[in-house]
């Protein structure tokens, strides 16, 4: 009898431990789930952007972002500056490519034509913001290793959130060379799989900047987006804050929105 009881207890403990192990996702699985959960077919967001330098001087901008999934995990992006006047009409087009480098083109109104951008340029800051061209590309899950460092309570906007703390490291030599970062550390809330904070470390492993996302709202079912973002660049003593003024999810955006013709015809400013 006693022997049978022990076998039952051991069996139950074994099953329980197995279920616990299966609940412990890997870093990559968390990232994949996050991508899957928050992905949309199309998105248009109009943002106010404030750039602040060390002296406290501020610069206000208006930006429109377009995004569309054109294939399985294959996206196109367009970012357009609407103001101030000296950069009005400047546009960045990105075509995500599988198994190759993404195509990127920059349109400068003064030149009245687009210029293809080389990959190395992606480490550079985009139009004086604290976001690099690389930061504006989608998360490249296949070329980074994601390690869960720990789980912790993260205090954010006056609340404590249960978070995964995940480290993203370039997975191969090619990516190590391309990326501007030695690593990124992300605080991802477990309940909604939203990224609350990301620390970026430069090639010398020095903490370079921190992106914090605020005021997540549901934009359609389980899909959530932050209303506000701050990129605080310690290295440059500079920060960029964005506030989303309007957002359209899963509306009909033609493929032509992501073409040069869309920009040349002036439709990007409408």
């Amino acid at each position: 009898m006693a022997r049978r009881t022990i076998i039952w207890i051991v069996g139950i403990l074994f099953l329980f431990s197995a279920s616990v192990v299966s609940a412990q996702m890997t870093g990559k699985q968390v990232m994949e789930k996050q991508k899957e959960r928050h992905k949309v077919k199309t998105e248009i967001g109009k943002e106010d952007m404030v750039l602040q330098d060390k002296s406290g001087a501020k610069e206000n901008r208006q930006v429109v972002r377009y995004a569309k999934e054109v294939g399985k995990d294959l996206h196109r992006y367009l970012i357009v500056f609407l103001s101030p006047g000296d950069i009005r009409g400047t546009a960045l087009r990105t075509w995500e490519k599988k198994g190759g480098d993404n195509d990127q083109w920059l349109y400068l109104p003064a030149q009245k034509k687009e210029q293809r951008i080389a990959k190395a340029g992606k480490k550079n800051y985009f139009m004086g913001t604290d976001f690099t061209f690389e930061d504006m590309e989608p998360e490249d899950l296949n070329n980074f290793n994601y390690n869960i460092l720990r789980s912790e309570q993260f205090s954010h906007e006056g609340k404590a959130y249960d978070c995964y703390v995940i480290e993203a490291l370039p997975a191969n030599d090619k990516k190590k060379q391309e990326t501007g970062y030695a690593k990124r550390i992300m605080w991802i809330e477990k309940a909604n799989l939203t990224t609350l904070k990301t620390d970026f470390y430069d090639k010398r492993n020095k903490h370079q900047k921190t992106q914090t996302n605020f005021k997540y709202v549901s934009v359609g079912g389980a899909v959530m987006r932050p209303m506000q973002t701050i990129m605080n660049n310690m290295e440059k003593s500079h920060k960029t804050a964005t506030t989303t003024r309007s957002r359209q999810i899963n509306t009909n955006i033609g493929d032509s929105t992501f073409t040069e013709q869309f920009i040349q015809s002036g439709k990007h400013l409408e």
Partner: protein
Amino acid sequence: MKKRPLLTSLAFLLVMYLLCPPITWGQTDYRFQEDDLLKEMDKAVEAPPEQKGEGGVAPVPVKQPTVLSKLVDDFHGSLRLRGMHYWQNPQEREGADTRNDFGSALFKFSDKIGYQNVALNVGGWVEYGNEENTYSGTSFSEFWQDMDRRRRIVDINDLYLNYSRDTFNFLVGKKTLTNGMSTLYLPSDRMRPQDLNDPLDVKDLNIWQARMDYDVAEATTLTAAFLPVYQPQKTPSETSRWMGERKQGDSMEFDIYDAGNANMKDDVAKVTDTNFGYFARFKKKGFHGWDFFASFYHGPNPFYVVREEQEQTSAGVTKTTRVKEVVKVDDYAAGFSTTYESWEFHGEVVYNYTYDRKDDDYFNYVTGFTYTFDDFAKKIWLEKIDVTVEYANEIITRFQNAETYVSSSKKSRLGRNDILSRINFEYNDKLSFQFVCNFQLTRGEEGRFQRLEAKYKLRDGLISKLAGEFFGGQSDSLYGRWQRNDRLILEFEYSF
């Protein structure tokens, strides 16, 4: 005094550097203790944001805009104040403007009004300055074809109706028509008449056109344009210092600034069916990392040739007159752009075929690259350094050979054995420096142009620029003639 352009350039760069706003070179241990921006943003989002689409919050009712409010919202422009100081006096000649200090104010504007897929776009400028024989007239005179050499004080250079759908765009009116994929010198960009009164501060005059851009496949666009009006370039006056120095024996007919020769007449292509232009282009972008185009143009050539005419005077004497003629050509062009690692490579070529052998037939090509230094730039406290280098040349396949035609357009053509370069040094979003140069290498016509510029953003929309331009070379070369035109330029431009 012997000139040392390199030393002058370096000295100028140093002066500009010292004049620039204070720069903190060292790294600072700067941390934001309190995010005041957050508080500001909180205020900004007090009004609920608009959410549309599947599952989103119902859109906030928005007041319907009126025609007037749309016109006001879409009105954009810029005001530029520009001052120039030349270090040397121009060559003495009758009527020459011998001053060394000039200034101008330029107000550019654009507006549009649209309904559904149709939009009417208007853009232009108001400009005035103290340069003699440079400013005159408005768009309302010579509305279709501007034959005046002088820059219009008031001009509408954009005036077009646009009808766009998802896969095509149809345009009728006056607008710029760009072509090519190169960066600094674009041999195929020939449908782009410009105001060259200041040859280094050019303005697009734009051309009348009916144009269709049709997306035949993904990122593959076919363009067809009908260009009914040939718009000649505008050139500096006879009294301008851009006429340059002329020595005995120097050619006088073929530089871009040539005008006013008493024995020279113009034979510009008038607006007739025989002078219509036609343009077609195939463009594909993002094809396995490559961008391509191929284009065809048939119509009047922007580079004129010279023919001689014999005239009998009343006294029975035969007088020879030279006539600048715009001849008809076919231009076949192709080009590409691609990227590899930190490099961007580009190139393009145009083949110019002239009817009746009135001008040379030739290939004009350019090839070059842009390399972006970022890791290295950061080591020297810069954000990035972009270096663009191009080489351009031409190959003549058939020389001009028509009766009474005495000179081809060769001397007025650009990109004949030239090296062009541009280096951008970006310290941050507000402060940047640029070095641009063009070396003309053809023996006997060697010339050089160098420009150094510091650009500083004073506040939202307000840019200041300080630049120095330096010229030198053989006396009969393009830049050699401008060797007295080394100048300092200060600009303030506010855009809204």
